[in-house]
Each structure stands twice: as structure tokens, then as C-alpha cells.
């Protein structure tokens, strides 16, 4: 295939990728969008296979088959609650693949038309250095994120003194090393750049706590895009540059949305150390107990059956308890009794952007019943019952009223405006942010203590009687 023809076909493939993202603007067009994405990828790989420099196919085909089988099997088997881990693992592979491609380009530059060994252009070497370093940071960063999400290491922020100076030092060292590498084309320096970047990726994500994982995943999504773009610059391939830029922009926007959902700046999160699993225990200790009302599943069933409208507020705790199917069943029964049932989703519900929507969709909750925060918040005042299950901080009114609260300024679901609040919770322990929730002690709140799934099942029993 001539160089011009392949450039043209790479252009078509780039357009396909743009259309793939555009398709996601609504559920109806999303599957068509996915088809565009697949076509774009087939075209990209097909075009590359047909280029004259590719002379042997054995390794390529076996690599495609091995990778294809592994990827397909994992993607078919994965549970939707484990989706964030899967995405983190996939990001790490993009990063490592970028490192490998950069290494191959350094060892045999003529395959990519960027010169010969010892005489690669300085510009290409700078691009190569940047590509390999973003790739390596993405790799180790994603591995740490995966380990935290999978529970292999504690979700607590791991901080130590001198952390920030150390990271800053490594960052400066990285820039210097890339400069020296570009000036010398030394293979040793290339591996030094790789090593420092691997270390930096590890150290950057380690101090970030479990509650900030939605931001971290989005950030690494963005990095994996920039890594692809970096490799695109190295190889002078506009398809890689365009795709990398699209993915990079997408991840950056998602990070921004997630940060806004928590009212925190990206710097705050990167430098932070906020949002551990255990912060709660230390904060809850010394306070005196305030009175609250506890209810049973019978009470909850009775109240909801006689309501006109119910808004369900699910959080990650609901997913952990695998309560989504029981919850949907409860919603369906209420609907058949003539109650209006809707689900309110906070932007940071779940462990990655849009995670809660996927979990509810998996449990067959109709797409139109699921409403985002800004579209449903005004309706709470006219709602009879808010049913909070597995969420906590995102309903805390002190985010609006108490400037001293750590979550002050965070957008919340105005659950307290509903006539009655039913709050499913295992105990009175505070949420991730370690803040007590005033909602628990209000007159119109009824606490339902127990496991989310069991509670839903018991309420179903009451409703069916």
C-alpha cells in the first residue's frame, strides 16, 4: 500500500473514532458509535498490515490471537462491580505497550522512517522520551490504582514525610534525563528515563485514597491518551496523534467532572492524602450520641406503599452489598402499586464515572428512570420518600450549611427536602469523608439498620403481603 493511500485510510479511521465518541451522546446511537469504533480499528490495523515495511506476519498474527482471546475472555467474565479494576488494568497495558513501542523504535528506528541507529533526529528523540515517560507513569500508576480498587493494598492514603519534595526531585530529574537522552541517543539514558518514570507513577498514585479513585481512573485514562499521542509524534503518525488527543481530552474532562462532583481541585487530590477507608473511625470517637429514630423493614414498606413518589438514592455501598437486583425488584413492586419511582445519581456515585448507571442498567432498571443530580434535585421538595441506600456523604446537608465541614461546597442531593427520608445503613458510622451526617438526626428521617440487600429483600416481603 502506498504511503499516501495509507495516510488516507488512517484519516478515515480517525473520523470513525470521532464518530464512535459522538455516538455516546445518547443511548440510542451508542451501539452504532461502537460499530464505528470497531470499523476504525480494523481499518487501522489492516492498513498497517498492508504497509510495505511489514514483511513477516507470524509474530503479529499470534500476538493478535493471544491478546484477542485473553481480552475477550476477561471482558465477558468480568462482574460490573469490578469494572473500575478492569479499566485500571487495561490502562496499565496501554502504558506498557507505549513503552515497548518506544523501545522498539529506539532499537530499530528505520522501521518507522525516523533515521538510523545513532542518527535519530533530536526532535524524534525528545518525542520518544516524552512518550516512554508518560507510558511508564501510566503503567505503574494504573497498577497501583488496580491494586487499591481490587483491595490488594489498603485504600488508605499512604503518605510519608518528604513525599512531595521527592516527587518534585524525580520530576526534575526526568526532564534533565530526557534532555540528555535526546542529545546523546544513549540507550542507558533511555532506560534511566523509563525507570524514573515508573517510580514516579508509583509514588504519584500511592498517596491517593480510595474515595478519590473516580478521579484517579479518569486521570489515568487521560494519561493513556497522551501516551498514545506521544508515540504518534515519535512515529510521525497522525492517526495516533488524533486518537491520543481525543482520549486525552476525554479523560481530562471526566477528571474535571469528578473533581467538581467532590468540590476539590485536581492539585488537592494529587497532593492530598484525603479519603481513606479508616479516617471515619478516628473521627467518630469522642462525640456524644445524638438521638435518632430507627425503623424496621415493615415501617419502610408501609411508608413507601402509601407514598405518591419515591426517589431512590443509591451509592457504592449498594453495589458492594450486591443489592441492585433486589432494589430494582422493590422499585418494580412499588411502581405496580402506582408509586412514581425514580433513581437519583450523584456524579461521584460508584468507583468510576458513570459506574452507578451501569450497575442499575445491569439490574434492568429502565434508562429513563435514572436521573442525574442537576435534573432531579429540585424534585426532592415535592417527593414523599427519599430512599437512601449505600450512599452517605453525597446526601449530607452540612456540605451546604457548615463552612467548617471537610465536604463544604460539594454538590449534594437535596434528600433532606423530601417529606420522609429512609436511610439504609449498617451502623451509625460516618462516611468516607469522616463527617457525621446531620440527616440521621432529623425528625423526618428513619434509619433502617442492616445489610442493603437483606433490607431490600425484607421490604419486598412486606410489600407482597
Amino acid at each position: 500500500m502506498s504511503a499516501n493511500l495509507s495516510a488516507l485510510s488512517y484519516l478515515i479511521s480517525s473520523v470513525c473514532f470521532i464518530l464512535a465518541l459522538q455516538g455516546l451522546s445518547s443511548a440510542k446511537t451508542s451501539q452504532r458509535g461502537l460499530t464505528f469504533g470497531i470499523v476504525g480499528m480494523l481499518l487501522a490495523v489492516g492498513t498497517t498490515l498492508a504497509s510495505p515495511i511489514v514483511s513477516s506476519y507470524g509474530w503479529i498474527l499470534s500476538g493478535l490471537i493471544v491478546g484477542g482471546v485473553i481480552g475477550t475472555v476477561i471482558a465477558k467474565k468480568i462482574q460490573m462491580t469490578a469494572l473500575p479494576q478492569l479499566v485500571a488494568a487495561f490502562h496499565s497495558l496501554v502504558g506498557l505497550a507505549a513503552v515497548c513501542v518506544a523501545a522498539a523504535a529506539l532499537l530499530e528506528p528505520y522501521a518507522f522512517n525516523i533515521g538510523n541507529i545513532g542518527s535519530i533526529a533530536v526532535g524524534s528523540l525528545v518525542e520518544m522520551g516524552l512518550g516512554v515517560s508518560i507510558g511508564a507513569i501510566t503503567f505503574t500508576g494504573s497498577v497501583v490504582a488496580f491494586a487499591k480498587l481490587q483491595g490488594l493494598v489498603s485504600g488508605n492514603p499512604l503518605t510519608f514525610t518528604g513525599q512531595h519534595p521527592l516527587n518534585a526531585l524525580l520530576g526534575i530529574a526526568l526532564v534533565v534525563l530526557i534532555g540528555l537522552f535526546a542529545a546523546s541517543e544513549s540507550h542507558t539514558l533511555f532506560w534511566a528515563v523509563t525507570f524514573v518514570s515508573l517510580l514516579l507513577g508509583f509514588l504519584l498514585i500511592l498517596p491517593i485514597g480510595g474515595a478519590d479513585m473516580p478521579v484517579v481512573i479518569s486521570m489515568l485514562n487521560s494519561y493513556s491518551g497522551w501516551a498514545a499521542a506521544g508515540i504518534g509524534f515519535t512515529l510521525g503518525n497522525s492517526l495516533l496523534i488524533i486518537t491520543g488527543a481525543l482520549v486525552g481530552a476525554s479523560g481530562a474532562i471526566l477528571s474535571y467532572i469528578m473533581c467538581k462532583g467532590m468540590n476539590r481541585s485536581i492539585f488537592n487530590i494529587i497532593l492530598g492524602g484525603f479519603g481513606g477507608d479508616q479516617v471515619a473511625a478516628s473521627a467518630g470517637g469522642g462525640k456524644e450520641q445524638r438521638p435518632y429514630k430507627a425503623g424496621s423493614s415493615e415501617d419502610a414498606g408501609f411508608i413507601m406503599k402509601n407514598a405518591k413518589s419515591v426517589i431512590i438514592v443509591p451509592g457504592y455501598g449498594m453495589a458492594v452489598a450486591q443489592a441492585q437486583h433486589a432494589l430494582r425488584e422493590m422499585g418494580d413492586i412499588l411502581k405496580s402499586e402506582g408509586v412514581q419511582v425514580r433513581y437519583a445519581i450523584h456524579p461521584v456515585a460508584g468507583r468510576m464515572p458513570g459506574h452507578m448507571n451501569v450497575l442499575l442498567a445491569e439490574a434492568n432498571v429502565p434508562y429513563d428512570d435514572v436521573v442525574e443530580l442537576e435534573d432531579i434535585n429540585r424534585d426532592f421538595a415535592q417527593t414523599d420518600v427519599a430512599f437512601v441506600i449505600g450512599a452517605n456523604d453525597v446526601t449530607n446537608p452540612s456540605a451546604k450549611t457548615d463552612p467548617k465541614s471537610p465536604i463544604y461546597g460539594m454538590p449534594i442531593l437535596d434528600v433532606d427536602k423530601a417529606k420522609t427520608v429512609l436511610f439504609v445503613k449498617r451502623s451509625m458510622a460516618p462516611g468516607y469523608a469522616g463527617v457525621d451526617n446531620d440527616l440521621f438526626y432529623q425528625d423526618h428521617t428513619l434509619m433502617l439498620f442492616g445489610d442493603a440487600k437483606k433490607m431490600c429483600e425484607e421490604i419486598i416481603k412486606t410489600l407482597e403481603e
Partner: protein
Amino acid sequence: MEMISPFLLGLTVFVLAVFVGYYVVWKVTPALHSPLMSVTNAISSVIIVGAVLAAGSAQDTLTQVFAFGAVVMASINIFGGFVVTRRMLEMFNKKK
């Protein structure tokens, strides 16, 4: 006439693509942010292009190892990313 450096041409493409990405992604409905993430993950593995070029022309064993590794990892992502995205989108499009 003086030749424009390939880097600047690449940069032009890059900056324009960031703008396209910015406008397209803001239009994505929040309900589909997880599929957005898995599909961008799949398409960012288009670096398989570089891996295929290297694997198909490598002379040296070490290069071959890197290139083969990159092909395997990128294809895990491509297949895995598209398959998991399809699974999710099917859930969103189930009939009620």
C-alpha cells in the same frame, strides 16, 4: 521554500484533535461515562499500529520481544475494551 518541520505539522493535528475531543466529549451523556471510558481505552490501543510496524520488520530478537509484547497488550485492550463496552451498551438498550 523552507520545509515546515514534521513536528509542527503533528502539533497542528494534535491541537485541533484536542478541540474536537473537547466538544465531542462534553456532549456525551453522563449516564454513558463508563462506556466512554472503556471505549476510549480500546481506541487508545491504536498504538498497535506502531507495534505491528515493529513486529513485522524487526531484525533483532530484543526488538521482536518488545514488538510482540506490545501487540499482545494492545490487542488485549482492543478486544477487551470493545467487548466490555458492547456488554454495557446492551444493558442500556435492553427493552423495558
